[in-house]
């Protein structure tokens, strides 16, 4: 047997160096957030206002990220877009409201720690209930329609209607005022910029969840399986893992995160209605589309972009606030038709 002549590399793997442009292209979406912030600074031309708006935008983005991350993972993993995802957001908000109502002694106290301590069980219970609802929803509504997009959309939409009506049954038809804990009202003044305290809390919680998610996805075995499943579900299945079970777990976690986002969003808006789920879903979908279906990083960037842009635009010209996020979506899709960090190839 003769050895192949040197220089023939047809068998040896060939690793091509990505060109500079390609590598820059991969990083480009990351630069969008600071770029948008700078554009905002130029357009607003008042640093104090800009700081206030940026904090507000980041807080809003973090909350949208909480609500959207579960949705995008579920899509990536099982190719199911859950139009009923908004239901879990609403469930979270209403359960959180009920729990905070029981803890009114803590929320009305003037101590920061007692206030945060009240927030904790509210979030925990909301996440548990939303996760439980997610479990029931997956078993009853989503499971029978795997692989049929049309039916998925219709059925999850139907599920959303049912959950919204059930919320009306349990909590009544009126919009409910959800007041923030005592010490989280008002704002901190840094220099000339006033930042609402609650927004700082939202940013911290959002960042913490993002970091935890990154760690869980990148450093644990389950995370590895989820990422692999998003990339190629059949292959993971063939290796002997039960992707259905994995999916169910992700669905429950995603619903729980939506519940967390719901509590946060409810406290941010200070009013909750049974229809809040379907209203916020629009923003969530825009974020998921911008980020690229199935990608957590893209979702994070998309959420921050949407949060920042809508706050800047709401300040500059209030009339076009929501339209601006649509414009953002169109621009992103023209640049990258599959979203910023597409994980799932369009089928």
């Amino acid at each position, binding site marked *: 047997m003769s050895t192949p002549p040197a220089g023939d590399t047809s068998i040896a793997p060939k690793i091509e160096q990505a060109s500079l442009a390609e590598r820059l292209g991969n990083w480009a979406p990351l630069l969008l957030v600071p770029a948008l912030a700078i554009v905002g600074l130029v357009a607003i031309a008042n640093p104090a206002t800009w700081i206030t708006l940026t904090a507000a935008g980041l807080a809003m983005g973090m909350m949208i990220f909480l609500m959207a991350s579960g949705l995008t993972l579920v899509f990536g993993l099982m190719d199911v877009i859950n139009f009923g995802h908004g239901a879990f957001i609403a469930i979270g908000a209403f359960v959180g409201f009920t729990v905070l109502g029981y803890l009114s002694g803590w929320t009305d106290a003037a101590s920061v720690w007692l206030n945060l301590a009240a927030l904790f069980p509210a979030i925990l219970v909301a996440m548990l209930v939303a996760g439980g609802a997610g479990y029931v929803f997956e078993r009853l509504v989503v499971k029978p329609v795997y692989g049929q997009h049309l039916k998925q959309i219709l059925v999850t939409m139907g599920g959303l209607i049912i959950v919204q009506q059930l919320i009306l049954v349990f909590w009544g038809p009126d919009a409910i005022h959800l007041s923030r804990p005592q010490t989280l009202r008002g704002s901190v003044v840094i220099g000339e910029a006033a930042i609402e305290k609650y927004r700082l809390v939202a940013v911290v919680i959002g960042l913490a969840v993002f970091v935890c998610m990154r760690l869980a996805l990148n450093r644990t075995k389950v995370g590895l399986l989820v990422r692999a499943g998003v990339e190629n579900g059949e292959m993971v299945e063939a290796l002997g893992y039960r992707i259905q079970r994995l999916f169910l777990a992700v669905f429950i976690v995603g619903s729980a995160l939506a519940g967390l986002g719901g509590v946060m969003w409810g406290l941010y808006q200070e009013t909750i209605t049974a229809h809040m789920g379907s209203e916020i879903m629009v923003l969530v979908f825009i974020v998921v589309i911008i980020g690229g*279906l199935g990608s957590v990083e893209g979702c994070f960037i998309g959420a921050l972009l949407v949060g920042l842009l809508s706050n800047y635009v709401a300040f500059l010209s209030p009339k076009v606030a*929501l339209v601006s996020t649509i414009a953002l979506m169109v621009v992103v899709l023209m640049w990258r038709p599959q979203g910023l960090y597409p994980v799932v190839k*369009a089928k």
Partner: protein
Amino acid sequence: MLANLLSGDTPRSRVLTIVLLVIFVSLLLAPFLFPGTRSLETAARICIFVVLVASYDLLLGYTGIVSFAHTMFFGIGAYGAAIALNHLGASFGSILVGAIAGSLVAAGLAFLIGLFSLRVKAIFFAMVTLAVASAFLVLVSQLSGLTGGEDGLNYKIPRELTPAFKLLDDRLFGVRVDGKLLAYYFVFFVSLALFLLMLRFVNSPFGRVLQAVRENAFRAEAIGYRVVTYRTLATVLSAMIAALAGVLLAVWLRYTGPATTLSLEIMVDILLMVVIGGMGTMYGAVIGATIFILAQTYLHELMAVASDATAPIPLLSALLSPDRWLLWLGLLFVLSVYFFPAGIVGRLRGAESQSAK
């Protein structure tokens, strides 16, 4: 002659034929059979929604496209007519101008959306249209100078279509022959014409291609049909017809506002009507719209009775309260997607062909 009018697409089920005939005759003679404003209001709503739902079925049932922007086109038509009537005065000319302008705008917008997003998968398109539609809703409520904002527009319609206009001095079968009656028949016959037109579309070679696209886009492409072109055409066509349905609503109600034309609730209603009636059958739109609107109007009362009867049982009576009728319809919706994917019409037709064997 009749088969020609129906484009050869007969109901193909005896029960269905009877039900459709009953609906048709009831709507045709509604002012005489069910005198009273409320029932006439209901009948006109049914006519308009039959057209709207059928035009949505053109997308959902025949082409397999899930769009959440259908109310946007409906609203464009309604606002087109409303703005024209508002600015050009109450004449048939302004209705015509509004209708043409509205349907052209709807067609253009549908074309743009199609161009941008029909290449991608169904789920993606659904999300994009949902986002676009809600942006449009916000835009309409913000541009209050043109659209009246949240309050909407009140305007006059041609005098011939108002109750003040008397056609005959005497009553006909105890019914006053006035402009309201004319307005109803205007709505009814335009709806009928639009419905027959759609029946013609779906039974033409064009309609067959749409169904081929729905069944298997890849194969349709392989045979040589340009799938994106056909999908875009279907979107444009259904958008134009939805806009015309909007014109009818605007003329009938003499009021156009975001809540009556654009809200997500109406979109959900349309979805429910299509699926419960039966996707991919124009007659499903008739059945679905009729059942839904009758339920919306009259189920309340029935449920109020049920709720009162169960008053001692706390949760059950809350579940049965008249405001919760959508809960039951939602449940019916989910169940019908699972168990009767072809809806009532498909079920009836299926039963017929089974017994024929």
